[in-house]
């Protein structure tokens, strides 16, 4: 390898850190997304852990759709690449060196996000760091291929912004990258299968809280889409300023989009685009994920939010809760087929009482917990509570319970937030991680 390529790689990195624009888009925007996710999904437990795949995907996508092509096109239009062509090395090797530098820049932004998530939000480190690394490399290769194509097609820097947004926005909004797939309408879930964003999120997220290695399908989809875009990008790469693309560009762009369609069709025919079967959601929660849940940031039992009375010594008779417990036992939403949803419904009762500022809120919560302990196998209850704690936005959240005397509805978002907190309080006690005072 020509030693000049190493110098070019190092200088590309150095010049990147001298550019104010690169710092803003390369580092401050990813940090902004991290903080925004922590605010929007504040009920996640552990905070941000179920979102890290999305957060990293946004950073890589931003670096690939905007960072790489902006730098390449700006240099080409200035005539830097025209000067590079006089060097005794193939221009392609300088493109590879530029891509390698961009990979390092995106990796440093991702490392910054992981560190900040840990320091500011106590997000646990990935359960499978090597799988995160593998997923990261695959996602980077794929998206940098897309970035190379954007650079080849864009006539100037403003055109990079326009073309980049054509990739970035759909994936962010309906591609399962920023807006979670679970809250997207079914048509958008199907459309997302034709875009690489959801496979990137899946490949990365599996290393954080899943079983580790993502599905081979995700990796294959990403590599196929990235390779086609990269090949078209190299074929259409222009080293001279002002040179226009001919009609053959359309053929190459069309060819680079074929894998998107193929991947979407393959995902559809293999059932990957079907909505996940909600009833069994809680059963997929593993011990490792349960062990990652934290309890030290929960509100106290006597505080305004999520109060919880001490355990009953007389079955609740002295506080009059034996009647309420009887009603709870016969309450229909507590007996739906899906045990996970039934547990969520019961916890909602405690949350509604809390939000309605019922004078019995603490004892109602204790009654619910006592009932749950008595009614479910410990293993099932553990998983169901973890599911409510980790995925507050999944399933159905009740906002009122007329049969139990709660006739005025409360806000669903608040119910989901309080339910996640109650679920952690109950789970902590069940596992002995929260000791009785």
């Amino acid at each position, binding site marked *: 390898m020509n*030693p*000049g390529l190493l110098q070019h790689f190092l*200088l590309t990195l150095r010049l990147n850190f001298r550019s104010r624009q690169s710092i803003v888009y390369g580092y401050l925007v990813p940090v902004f997304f991290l903080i925004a996710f922590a605010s929007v999904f504040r009920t996640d437990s552990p905070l941000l852990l179920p979102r890290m795949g999305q957060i990293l995907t946004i950073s890589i996508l931003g670096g690939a759709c905007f960072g790489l092509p902006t730098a390449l096109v700006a240099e080409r239009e*200035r005539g*830097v690449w025209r000067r590079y062509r*006089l060097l*005794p090395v193939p221009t392609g090797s300088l493109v590879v060196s530029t891509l390698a530098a961009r990979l390092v820049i995106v990796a440093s932004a991702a490392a910054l996000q992981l560190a900040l998530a840990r320091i500011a939000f106590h997000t646990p480190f990935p359960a499978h760091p090597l799988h995160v690394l593998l997923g990261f490399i695959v996602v980077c290769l794929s998206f940098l291929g897309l970035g190379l194509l954007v650079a080849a097609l864009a006539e100037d820097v403003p055109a990079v912004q326009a073309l980049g947004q054509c990739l970035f926005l759909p994936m962010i909004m309906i591609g399962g990258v920023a807006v979670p797939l679970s809250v997207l309408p079914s048509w958008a879930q199907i459309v997302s299968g034709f875009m690489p964003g959801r496979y990137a999120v899946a490949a990365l997220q599996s290393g954080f809280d899943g079983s580790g290695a993502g599905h081979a399908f995700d990796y294959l989809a990403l590599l196929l889409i990235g390779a086609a875009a990269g090949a078209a990008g190299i074929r259409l790469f222009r080293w001279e300023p002002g*040179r226009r693309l001919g009609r053959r560009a359309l053929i190459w762009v069309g060819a680079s989009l074929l894998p998107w369609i193929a991947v979407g069709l393959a995902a559809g025919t293999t059932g990957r685009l079907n909505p996940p079967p909600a009833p069994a959601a809680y059963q997929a929660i593993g011990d490792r994920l349960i062990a990652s849940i934290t309890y030290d940031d929960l509100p106290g039992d006597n505080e305004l939010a999520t109060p919880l009375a001490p355990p009953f010594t007389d079955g609740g008779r002295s506080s009059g809760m034996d009647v309420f417990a009887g009603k709870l036992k016969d309450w229909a939403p507590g007996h739906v087929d899906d045990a996970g949803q039934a547990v969520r419904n019961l916890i909602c009762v405690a949350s509604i009482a809390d939000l309605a500022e019922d004078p019995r809120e603490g004892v109602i919560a204790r009654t619910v917990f006592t009932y749950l302990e008595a009614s479910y196998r410990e293993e099932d209850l553990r998983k169901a509570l973890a599911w409510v704690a980790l995925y507050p936005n999944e399933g159905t959240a009740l906002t009122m319970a007329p049969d139990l005397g709660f006739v005025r509805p409360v806000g669903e978002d608040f119910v989901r937030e309080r339910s996640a907190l109650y679920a952690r309080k109950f789970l902590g006690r069940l596992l002995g991680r929260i000791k009785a005072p």
Partner: protein
Amino acid sequence: MSVRMLNKRYGSVAAVRNVSFDVAPGEILGLLGPNGAGKTTTIECILGLRRPDSGAIMIDGIDALADRDRAKLRVGAQIQSASLQDKITPRQALRLFGSFYGTSAKAGELLERFELSAKADAPFDTLSGGQRQRLFLALAFVNDPTLVVLDEPTAGLDSRARRALHQLIAGMRTAGRTVLLTTHIMEEAHTLCDRVAILNEGRIVALEEPDELIAGSNSKVIFRTARPLDSAQLGSLPHAVSSRAGGGGWTVVTSDANRTVVGLVRLVEAGGNELLDLQIHRPSLEDVFLELTGRPLSAPEEDKESGPS
């Protein structure tokens, strides 16, 4: 360096047609031509930026078309429409470009030689036009080239910066390097170049030393007499090519002004006439250029003749 029967077409346009020339070590050859004459395409073929349709290019004994990367090792170039990143410094640029040839250690020496030491660590976007041009010249020297190609090296510079660059370029001849340059400034071509090749519509229409080109071109003898002259008598003057009346006098185009004037004096005296006024207009390189191409040498061109869409 030797170029033989070089041809390059862009679609239906023949940008370069059967161009052949040699440049010897220690020689500066100037390529002159109006916009679209094929200068930049010729240079880009020599530098390996474009592949000619046919022809041969030998640089320092290397077939530049068959072994492009090896030929590039022997060539240093300053080309138009090339630039550097805003925040790169001259020292970084020289080290970077030098590292491709294993000569990054020469950066300090080049900074000194091209009078850039004071701006060695200043970002490129803070350099003046002259400093940038000197940096591009310095970059052309990072590989200690045997052939130096300079495309409009003094374009956009003030006269002081231009003179300084002329000294640097003249020094290349002394160092025994082969230099090929294009320019739009006739004075520059006349002063710097050992020979000039004039291109028009993709062909070389003249290739000689500047003084020989001028000497081979016609002068004008402009005069007035006390009494009218017969145009038939003027046609018989020695070395006269043509004559025409105008402005109260006569203009005789001649291939040897001295002998024509002697003949004219004899003719006037023999006829009892009297010469009232006489001027000899000897041609400049600019006139030669105009005569050969039919167009004046205008402002420095961008690469208008090249580049397929």
